[in-house]
C-alpha cells in the first residue's frame, strides 16, 4: 500500500485528496472540508447510537428499554427529517454533488435510499421493541433477544440472567450503528469508504444475529456462518479494491472512471498500468462479488437461508429489507458511476448471475418447509429480479430499482413481523405444516400475510406488481428481453409457492394442537399495518412514487 501511496502522491494532486495526502506529512496536511449539513442524516444516526451506548452504560437497567426505544425512534425520525430537508433543498437533483472531500456522494439515489433505509429502520425498531409475544419470564415482559448475549447457552449464568429478567437493550444501539453504515454504503463515492461502510453495518448485524432468546445455539451458529462468509466476501471486496487501485492509482470513483474512459491526464505512474486490463477486470469482478454477496445473489446466496432462519425474526426482517436496499444502492453506484465504460464486460456476466439468481432462488423455494427459509429463498429470487432492473443500464433502470427496493423492503418487514406472531410452546412456529388452517383460526393475520405473499408474487394491486412491472419494463427497454422472459418464468414458479402457503392457510383443516396467534402490542401491530399500507398504496397508486424514484434516478459523478 505504502508504495502505491507514494506513487500517487508524486503523481497528481487531484487524485483522491484525503487518503492520498494524509500520508504526505504533517506540514502538508490540509484541513478536510466536511459538509456537515449534507452528512447530517448519517451523523445524527451515529450520534444517537453513541448516546445509546452511554445510556446502556449509565442508566439503571429498568429504564434502559424505554430510553433506548425513544432514542432510536427519535434519532431515526430526525435523520429522516434531515433527508427530507436535503431533498427539499434540491440536493437530490440540481444541487447534487460530492461531499466530504470526495468520499460521499449526495444525490438522488443516495437520498432516496437513505430515506427508505431510515423508514425501514423505524419500523424495524418497532418490531425489535415488541415485548408482548413471548410469555413473561419471571414476571417481566421480554423481547425476542437473549437475556444476556455473552452467557453461554444452557449455562448457569444464562439461567441467572433469565431469572433476573435481563433483556439485551444493546440491540438498539447496534441497530443504529448498522443503519449508520447502511446510510453511507449507497452514498460511498470511493472504494475505501465503501469498504468501511460495509464493515460498519455488517459487524453489528453479525452480533444481532446471535442474540435470539430461543434456539440460541441455532442463532449463534447463524451468526458465526454469517460472520465467516461475510469476512470471506469482504476479503474478495478488499482484494478487488486493491487491484482497481493498482490499475487506476486511485480509489475515487470519479478518477477510476476517468482512467477507464481514458480521459484522465496521463502520468508516468498510470502509464505503467494503462492497457493492463487484467488488473481492472479482475478487480471489477471481485468488488462486484463482494457486493453480490450482500444482496444474496447466486452463487453467493448460501448464507441467506441459514442466517434468515437462525437470526431473531425481527433482525431477519430488518436485515432482509435494509441490507438489500443498501447493497443494491452501492452496486448501482459502482456499476453506473465507476464502470459504465466497462458495461460490455460486466453486463454479460451479471446477466448470467441474474438468471441463475432468479431461477435457482425460485426453484429451491418450491421445496422449502420452513416459512423463514421460504422467505429467504424468495429474497434470493427477488435479488435476481432487481438485478434485471440494474442491468437495464439506463435512468429508468435506476429509478425502477429504487422503487422496487422501497416496495420490497416493506413487504419483507411486514411478512417477517407476521412470522413473529404465529407461535406455540417452543416459540415461533415456523414450520409450514404448522400454518395449516391459520385462515380459519385467525383470519385477519392470515389475510395480512396473504397480502404480503401476493405482493411477493407480484399480483396486481400490490406494490410487488408495480415494482416488478417497473424493473421488467426497464430491462426490456434496456435490451435485456431474455432476462425479462426468465424473470417472468421465475415469477410463475415463485407464484406457486406463495400461493401454496395461501392455500395452506385458508383451505386446509386447522391442526388440533396447532400454533396460536399471539396478540401483539401496538408496536408490532403498527409495523404490520405500515407494511400493509405501503404495500397497498404502492400497488394502487404507484405513480407518485414512481415519479419520485424517477426524479431521484440520476447519479452525481
Amino acid at each position, binding site marked *: 500500500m505504502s508504495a502505491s501511496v507514494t506513487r500517487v502522491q508524486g503523481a497528481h494532486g487531484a487524485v483522491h485528496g484525503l487518503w492520498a495526502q494524509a500520508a504526505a506529512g504533517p506540514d502538508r496536511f490540509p484541513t478536510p472540508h466536511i459538509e456537515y449539513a449534507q452528512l447530517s442524516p448519517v451523523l445524527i444516526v451515529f450520534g444517537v447510537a453513541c448516546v445509546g451506548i452511554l445510556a446502556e452504560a449509565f442508566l439503571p437497567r429498568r429504564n434502559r428499554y424505554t430510553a433506548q426505544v425513544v432514542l432510536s425512534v427519535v434519532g431515526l425520525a430526525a435523520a429522516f427529517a434531515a433527508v427530507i430537508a436535503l431533498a427539499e433543498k434540491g440536493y437530490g437533483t440540481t444541487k447534487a454533488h460530492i461531499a466530504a472531500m470526495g468520499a460521499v456522494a449526495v444525490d438522488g439515489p443516495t437520498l432516496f435510499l437513505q430515506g427508505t433505509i431510515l423508514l425501514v429502520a423505524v419500523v424495524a425498531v418497532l418490531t425489535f421493541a415488541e415485548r408482548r409475544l413471548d410469555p413473561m419470564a419471571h414476571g417481566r415482559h421480554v423481547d425476542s433477544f437473549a437475556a444476556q448475549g455473552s452467557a453461554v447457552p444452557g449455562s448457569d449464568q444464562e439461567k441467572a440472567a433469565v431469572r433476573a429478567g435481563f433483556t439485551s437493550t444493546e440491540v438498539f444501539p447496534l441497530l443504529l450503528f448498522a443503519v449508520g453504515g447502511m446510510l453511507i454504503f449507497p452514498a460511498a463515492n470511493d472504494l475505501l469508504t465503501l469498504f468501511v461502510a460495509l464493515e460498519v453495518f455488517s459487524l453489528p448485524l453479525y452480533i444481532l444475529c446471535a442474540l435470539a432468546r430461543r434456539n440460541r445455539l441455532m442463532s449463534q451458529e447463524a451468526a458465526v456462518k454469517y460472520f*465467516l*462468509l461475510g469476512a470471506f466476501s469482504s476479503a474478495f471486496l478488499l482484494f478487488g479494491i486493491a487491484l482497481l487501485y493498482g490499475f487506476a492509482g486511485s480509489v475515487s470513483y470519479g478518477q477510476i472512471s476517468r482512467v477507464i474512459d481514458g480521459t484522465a491526464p496521463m502520468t508516468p505512474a498510470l502509464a505503467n498500468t494503462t492497457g493492463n486490463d487484467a488488473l481492472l*477486470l479482475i478487480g*471489477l469482478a471481485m468488488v462486484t*462479488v463482494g457486493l453480490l454477496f450482500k444482496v444474496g445473489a447466486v*452463487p453467493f446466496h*448460501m448464507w441467506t437461508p441459514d442466517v434468515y432462519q437462525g437470526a431473531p425474526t425481527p433482525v431477519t426482517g430488518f436485515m432482509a429489507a435494509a441490507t438489500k436496499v443498501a447493497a443494491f444502492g452501492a452496486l448501482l453506484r459502482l456499476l453506473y458511476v465507476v464502470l459504465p465504460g466497462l458495461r460490455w464486460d460486466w453486463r454479460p456476466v451479471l446477466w448470467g448471475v441474474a438468471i441463475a439468481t432468479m431461477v435457482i432462488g425460485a426453484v429451491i423455494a*418450491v421445496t422449502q418447509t420452513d416459512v423463514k427459509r421460504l422467505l429467504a429463498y424468495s429474497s434470493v429470487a427477488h435479488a435476481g429480479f432487481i438485478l434485471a432492473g440494474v442491468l437495464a443500464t439506463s435512468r429508468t433502470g435506476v429509478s425502477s430499482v429504487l422503487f422496487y427496493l422501497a416496495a420490497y423492503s416493506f413487504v419483507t418487514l411486514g411478512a417477517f413481523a407476521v412470522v413473529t406472531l404465529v407461535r406455540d410452546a417452543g416459540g415461533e412456529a415456523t414450520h409450514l405444516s404448522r400454518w395449516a388452517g391459520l385462515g380459519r383460526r385467525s383470519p385477519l393475520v392470515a389475510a395480512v400475510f396473504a397480502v404480503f405473499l401476493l405482493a411477493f408474487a407480484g399480483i396486481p394491486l400490490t406494490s410487488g406488481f408495480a415494482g416488478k412491472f417497473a424493473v421488467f419494463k426497464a430491462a426490456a427497454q434496456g435490451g435485456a428481453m431474455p432476462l425479462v422472459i426468465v424473470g417472468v418464468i421465475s415469477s410463475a414458479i415463485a407464484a406457486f409457492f406463495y400461493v401454496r402457503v395461501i392455500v395452506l392457510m385458508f383451505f386446509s383443516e386447522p391442526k388440533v394442537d396447532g400454533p396460536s396467534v399471539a396478540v401483539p402490542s401496538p408496536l408490532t401491530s403498527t409495523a404490520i399495518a405500515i407494511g400493509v399500507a405501503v404495500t397497498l398504496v404502492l400497488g394502487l397508486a404507484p405513480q407518485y412514487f414512481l415519479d419520485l424514484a424517477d426524479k431521484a434516478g440520476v447519479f452525481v459523478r
Partner: protein
Amino acid sequence: METLIGLLVAAPLLGAGILLTGGRRLDRTGHLIGTLLALVSFAFAVVLFADMLGKDTAQRTLTSHLWTWVPVEGFQAQVGFQLDQLSMTFVLLITGVGSLIHIYSIGYMAHDERRRRFFGYLNLFLAAMLLLVLADNYFLLYAGWEGVGLASYLLIGFWQHKPSAATAAKKAFIVNRVGDIGLSIGIMLMFTTFGSFAFADVFPKVAQASGTQHATVTGIGFMLLLAACGKSAQVPLQSWLGDAMEGPTPVSALIHAATMVTAGVYLITRSSAIFNAAPDAQTAVVTVGAVTLLFGAIVGCAKDDIKKALAGSTMSQIGYMIMAAGLGPIGYVFAIMHLVTHGFFKAGLFLGAGSVMHGMNDEVDMRRYGALRSYMPITFVTFGLGYLAIIGFPGLSGFFSKDKIIEAAFAKGGGEGWILGSAALLGAAITAFYMTRVMIMTFFGEKRWQPDAEGHEPHPHESPATMTVPMIVLAFGSVFAGGLFSINSAFVKWLEPVTGHSEGNSPVSTATVTAGTMVVLVVGVALAWAMYGRRPVPAVAPRGSLLTRAARRDLLQDDFNHVVLVRGGEHLTRSLVYLDHSLVDGVVNGTAASVGGLSGRLRRVQNGYVRSYAVSMLGGTALVVAATLLMRAV
C-alpha cells in the same frame, strides 16, 4: 331539458336499486314504487316530447354529455345521451307500454310472493332499454344492450323453480351471447377503423370510407346484423323466443313483443349510415327479414300454446320490420312505424292472452279453450281489436303500417323487389290465417275446458281492472295509432330528418298493393274459418302433415342446433378435454415435477456446512472472474 334525459333513465334505475336492495320491508309497497317510477319516466318522456314538438325540425336533437366513462389516452368512452326523433319514438313506446304493463302486472302478479323482485327487474329492464335507445355512442349502447339481455334472462327465468323456465332463460341468454359477440366485434371494428364509437363521429366517416375501409364497413354491417338477429329473434338466432314464453305473460308482452325484441330494428335503423354504405349487408338484412317473416308465420300456424303462437307471430312481424329496415331509406320509416303499431297490438294481444290464462287456471293450450267470448267480454273485445289490427284490417293500425312495408318491398325494384313483395304478401296471408285460428280456438266454438293438474275446473271470469284498463288503452292504440300516423304522412315527416326517406319507384301502384293485401287477407281468414270455425276443434292435436309437425317443432330449429352446434360443440370440447388432459396437463405436471425434482436436488447443496458455502463462493468468484476476462477475450 337535457337533464331530463338523464332523469328519464335514472328513474327506473333508481326503482330497480330500491326494489332489489330494499329487502322484505318493501314487499307490500314495492310494486307501487316500481309502477310509480315507470310512470314518472313516462311523464318525463311526454314533457320531452312536447318540448321537441315545439321546436323546428332542425333543432330537435338534444344531446347531453354526462361524464367520461373510460378516460384513457386513445380510448375515450363517453356517457352521453342523444335524443332525436328516432329515440323519442322509442322512449315513448318503452315508457308508455312499460308503464301500462307495470300497472297490468300489479293485478297479474298479485299472488306471487316474489312480486317486489319482479317489479325490480321490470324497472331494471326499462332503465337498460332507455339507455340503449338514448346512448349517443355504440359503447354505451352496448351497455344497454347487455342490460336488457340481463333483464330478459332474469325475467324469463323468473319462475326459476320450474326447470323449463330456468332452461328457457339459459337458452335465451346463450343464443343472445352469439348476437352480442357480433355487436362487440362490430364495435371493435368500428373503433379500429374510425377511432371512435360515437354516432356523430362514425357516421360521417362511414360516408367517406375509402376502398379498404369499405370492406370493413360491410363487415361491421354483417356484425350488427348478427347482433340484431340475436336480440330480435331472427333466423338463424330465433330459437330462444318461443321458449322465452316461459316467463310471466307481462314480460312476454313488454320485453318479448313490444320493446326489447325490436332493439335489432333500432340498431339497424340507427346504423342506417353504415348499411346505406354497405349494400351487401343490406341484402343480407332483407334476406333475413323475409325468411324470418315466413318462418315465424309458419311456426305460428302450428302452435297450440297461445303464447307460443303469438311468439311466432312476433318473430314474423319483426321479420317485416327488419326487411323494411334492410330496404334502406325506402323502408326505415315504415319499419319504425310498424314497430310502434306492433308494440300496441302485440302487447295488447299478449295481455289478452295473459288475461285468458288468468281466468283459465294458467292453461295455455288453445285446444282447451273455446267459447270464452261471453265469459270475458272486455278481453274478447280488446283481443279482437288487436287481432284485426295485426291482420291488417282496413282502418286499423296494422293496415297502415304493414301495407306500407309491402309497398316499400315492391318499391325496392327489380327482381329483388318482386321476391320481397311476394314474400311479404304471402306472410300477410299466413298472418291472417294463424291469427284467425288463435281467435277462433280461444273465443269461439264450443267449450273444450279441462280441469287442471290438481283437478280444479276452470271458472273463466273477467280480470280485475288493473289488468283490463291497460288492455283497453292498448286497444285504442291498436285501432287508431296507424291512422293517426298516416294523416298527412305525419310519421314520415316526423322521422325523416333522422333516417331519411325516399319513395322508391314501385312497379305496382299503391292501389294494386292494397287490393292484393285485401285479397290475401280474405283468403287467409276464410281458410282458417274453414278449418277451425266450421269444424269442431279436436281436443287432442291431430298428427298433421309433415310441415305441420315440423312447424310444431319450430321448423326443426332446435334439432338443427342440436345436431350441428351442440353435437359439434360436444365433440370439440371432448377433444379439447382430451388434449388438455394428455398434452397440457402432461406438460404442466411434467414441468412441475421437474421443477420439484430440481429443487430437491439443489436443496441438497445447501448442506449447512460453512466450508461448502465458502467453496461455492470461491467457485462462483472464480467463475465470475473467468467470465469477465473471457468476455474481453472474445
